[in-house]
């Protein structure tokens, strides 16, 4: 089955120096070499300063520009794994370098729609919902929203480039590595009042178009972030 891994960590305001950057790159290359057969997708996110949060729904979207200063842990990347069970998914997740000083949330995916086009100039729209009102997959209410997402994808055509609904927050597991030991916590890392419950990858020309397309997504809040296109995955 498929698992979505959301990489979280403190966002540094300054660019790391060249040697630190090279170190990080090689840690990730190493991770890709070891677990490449299970990784279906993934990328790093451009710092949140270029991102946006959209609230208010498709009829009256309100756009707030990044960075999102209130958050100590900011999404810095994502992966999609194919793994037989949660044990395997957690083993892979614990090997992600981000676990060393940040955290990785591992979410079971309801279904996975892989990208249909190359991932060269893409944005990720993380769908956020209030913790207490996330709908359970399979319920009539959830099916209705899922149909709206289908309609959104049909309306924007090629600009929707895959995505996935996620299972309930209570099915997620947060992975950290501290002092060389894997530390698991039940549930996502919750800082604000909202949690992820799905994402779309958007294939768009620029930030303006990304905001325009993301504003059409039926979700309480959309965190829109540019993908770096660095992973080569």
């Amino acid at each position, binding site marked *: *089955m498929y698992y979505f891994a959301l990489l979280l960590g403190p966002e540094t305001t300054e660019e790391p120096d060249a040697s630190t950057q090279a170190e990080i790159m090689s840690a990730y290359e190493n991770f890709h070499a070891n677990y490449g057969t299970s990784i279906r997708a993934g990328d790093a996110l451009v710092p949140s300063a270029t991102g946006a949060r959209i609230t208010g729904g498709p009829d009256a979207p309100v756009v707030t520009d990044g960075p999102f200063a209130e958050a100590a842990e900011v999404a810095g990347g994502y992966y999609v794994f194919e793994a*037989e*069970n*949660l*044990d395997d998914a*957690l083993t892979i997740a614990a090997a992600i370098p981000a676990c060393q000083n940040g955290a990785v949330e*591992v979410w*079971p995916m309801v279904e996975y729609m892989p990208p249909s086009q190359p991932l060269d100039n893409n944005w990720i729209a993380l769908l956020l919902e209030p913790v207490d009102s996330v709908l359970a*997959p*399979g319920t009539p209410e959830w099916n209705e929203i899922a149909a709206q997402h289908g309609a959104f994808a049909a309306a924007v055509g090629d600009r929707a480039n895959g995505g996935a609904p996620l*299972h*309930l927050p*209570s*099915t*997620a*597991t947060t992975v950290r590595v501290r002092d060389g030991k*894997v530390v*698991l*916590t*039940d*549930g996502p890392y919750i800082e604000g009042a909202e949690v992820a419950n799905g994402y779309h990858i958007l294939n768009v020309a620029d930030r303006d178009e990304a905001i325009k397309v993301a504003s059409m997504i039926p979700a309480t809040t959309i965190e829109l972030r540019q993908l770096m296109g660095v992973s080569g995955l």
Partner: protein
Amino acid sequence: MTNLDGVFRREWGSAVAALARWSGDLTIAEDAVQEAFAEALRAWPRDGIPENPAAWIVTVARNRALDRLRRESVRPGKELAAVYDDITARTDRQGVPHRIRDDELRMMFTCAHPALDPQSQLALTLRLISGLTVSEIARALLQSEPAVGQRITRAKNKVRHANIPLRVPPPELLPQRTPHVLACIYSVFTEGYWSTAGPSAIRDELCDEAIRLAGEVCSLMPDERDGQALAALMLLHDSRRHTRVDADGALVPLDEQDRDRWDRGRITRGLDRLRNAAGATGPYLPQAVIAALHATASRWEDTDWDGICLAYDRLIAITHSPVARANRALALGFRDGFDAGLAAIDDVAADPRMARSNTVASIRADLHRRAGRYVEAQRWYLEAVDQAGSDPARQFLRRRLVECGGQRV
């Protein structure tokens, strides 16, 4: 039908475990076994208890599960359809499930999976393995029934949707996973033995169940030394179950317990387990050694305080626990004199983790009392009574306060 309850308790865990392996789903397993027991309640008074109640329960439960899956799979788009295909395919090959005890070990690893919150692990274990009802669990853990029910439902949903495997993990994962199973079993025991809050019948049941589960781990994973140490620890503590609280419900300290009433059978079994535990690296071995040194002293005056202090040193090196350091200070007081103990407890008192516990105050009170400084002792007993966590402990501390010449509070 007086002994149906006994059958229920004995067969519940293994039946749920067998159905879970067979169906691959905890909810289906639990519901089916529940229905089978309801059916037994109707059929057995009429037809008599079957020769093999376990097989009867598992067979009826399997048929109920099949009925349900068949019913739900005819509706399109139901995920249970896939489970049904899986079950029918496996049933054709294997028939009625067996290897019940392995199934139970598998369930222990699933219920105590580290991706589940420890409180959820405990509730899930008590429900699916031990067969306590939600209301019994709520009473034992001093939580509300809806909260426990929701916790269990969430945990089962996570097992299903995040695909937590129903299995004993492969060898490379065992070193990280077994400690969670042992910790979960130990929390079943501590809820029964130390909490002293819920109804006593349920507390006794938790102690017995924890000892049974540890026994299963010992026989199915005989090389797991920490499991042996845990079993030893619980048996040795539990040998004092009937002497540690008096007729009025007050805690009785070790030096006042009637040692002739300690359960010799449990002590012997505990010491056997302790011998098998040599080489264990976890926190249970030094605690079991301490319990064994108390259990084997024929009089309080004969207690081997030197051995107990050494065991506390090992425990502190493993857990860095301030509670262990506080108890070591008390043991030091018996070995090296009360003032040495008081000096050692001063070092622990500053630890912020002890701020909300009355352990430091109780130990100071006891050491001053034994040294004959009753005014000092009164002061600390008063503080300890204020922060006491349970009624039996509070009653005991009040009694001591009066013995030291203090006013009844």
